[in-house]
């Protein structure tokens, strides 16, 4: 994009110079007095100066446009990254529970908006448990936790086919440690993009 506008600006500048040169061609046929010649020369110089000024102005504008484009691209990238981060933000659960906590509903609402603004986007929810519960039961509990988040998103209008779920039980802790601060971080749902994740739009 930006390279195209830059080439266009240079082309315009060249055209202006050509026009100025043409304007100078009739000068030798002119039989007007020297004063007039001087005036004519002055006009030519003015014309050339004006053309140069015009060219510089257009170059500046082109550079500005390019800068603005770069900025817009970066902003879009930043926005996409921001959307991506919002989408990935985890939700957490109480011990041996799979219900969505009220303080996590806002987090899920943001994901609903993102999924609505990006219809191609598909995600996978992974349910995780802490080491405190039973090893095997945690596979069922992790499954419930992933399902809870999916049901929340589906009940807010997201097509169920866009959301995969999986359970990790307690097999993939986020934080090592054997106390409540580690456990509470490990009781979580993770959200990852499985498709349509390029150039995510802000809701």
């Amino acid at each position, binding site marked *: 994009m930006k390279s195209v506008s830059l080439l266009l600006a240079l082309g315009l500048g060249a055209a202006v110079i050509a026009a100025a040169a043409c304007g100078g061609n009739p000068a030798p046929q002119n039989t007007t007095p020297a004063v007039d010649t001087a005036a004519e020369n002055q006009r030519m110089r003015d014309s050339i100066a004006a053309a140069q000024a015009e060219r510089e102005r257009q170059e500046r504008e082109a550079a500005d446009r390019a800068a603005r484009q770069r900025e817009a691209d970066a902003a879009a990238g930043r926005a996409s990254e921001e959307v991506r981060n919002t989408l990935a933000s985890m939700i957490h659960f109480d011990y*041996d529970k799979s219900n969505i906590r009220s303080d996590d509903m806002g987090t899920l609402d943001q994901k609903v908006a993102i999924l609505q603004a990006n219809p191609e986007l598909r995600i996978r929810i*992974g349910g995780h448990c802490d080491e*405190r*519960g*039973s*090893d*095997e*039961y945690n*596979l*069922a*509990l992790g*499954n*419930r936790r992933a*399902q809870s988040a*999916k049901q929340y998103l589906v009940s807010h209008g997201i097509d169920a086919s866009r959301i995969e*779920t*999986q*359970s*990790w*039980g307690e*097999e993939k802790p986020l934080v090592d440690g054997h106390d409540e601060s580690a456990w509470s971080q490990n009781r979580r749902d993770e959200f990852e993009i499985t498709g349509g994740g390029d150039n995510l739009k802000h809701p």
Partner: protein
Amino acid sequence: MVARDLDYSDRFEVITLPGGDSIRLAGTTGPRRSSAGGTAAPRGGTQGSLNYPLYQALGADFALDITAAGDTTLATLHDIAGAGIRRTLRVRLPRSSDPDFRQAVHRLADQALQAAIGTPGIAATRILFVKDGKVYQIDQDGADQKLVSSSDRKAMSPAWASDGRHFAYMEFQAGKGWLYLQEMGGGKRTAVSTTGSALDFTPAFSPDGQTLAFSRATEEGTDVYTINIKDNCCLRRLTVGRFSDNLSPTFSPDGQRIAFVSTRPGLPQIYVMAADGTDQQLFAPFDYGVTGASNAPEWSPDGQSVAFHRDVAGTLQVFVLDVRTRTVRQLTSVGRNEDPTWAPDSRHLAFVSDRSGYRQLWIIDLDTGRIRPLLQQSGARLPAWSPRLSEATSSTP
């Protein structure tokens, strides 16, 4: 080894009597019998001519005298009170370098126990367990630990077939669970059909070895299924818990019933149903809103009990349900104790405990309450105690 086996049977008190021929003696306490055993005495000079009155005075009920004669080993069990020989066992033990040597000695100890009290022992048994995502086996006396699973995927939930020749286990990867059957000896592995598309876990053999019950987690929740593993067919869903999870099946030894975990009361608790999925009902009583989550049931080989673990004040403890009276008894209280598995004598349980500071396997005798560590390694979990292993089943590659 034999002395340790008899000791670990928790049916005797075995103590060492100083003496040139290493005679071991025991004193009697309460209902426990006592035994005297002689370790392999090279010349076997005392056989058949024990000083019975002396041993009786020391409180012994039995004396075991083991003699090696060429490639044959003679084990003579003396009945002290009867002042005579109860039984003479003649076995050919492999050389001590033979991989089957230890199991052969364990089988001899089991025969001696059978001769003494009429009940087979548990010396010739092994325990499967999981450590760092791999399945290992270990003899019940803590010797001969071996890796038995071969996959790079994370292994969980080993379970023995009642013939002792096969086990089932689950491999876990990225939210999916595959069930496999593996031969104990050759290590040949077969995938159970239809598994791996969902999260399949906690396999359990029916006593006749024809059926595998397991848990399957899907978008509808987790439910108990069975599949015919002989013909690899006939997948059947036994529970339909749209809003509850049902998992961790365990067959009664007659194959008629399945105990399992259900979250239908909110927290997981122990339920039971007929093997075809009908007549589902609460099995282990609990106080609603008071009793903690209950999990990991295993039906005892004698059919009379179901062991499980229950959350007590934020940590897990091992409980036993009496099937007839439907009453529960708490077995442990020190540290965190979980995933109990029955020995074939239905009076010993192996379980995971962190009582020593890290999670490892322990064995408890329900009758005496005696507890011993099986392993001195951290990170062991999900133990499964074998049935009694006959000669054909105990050899390993």
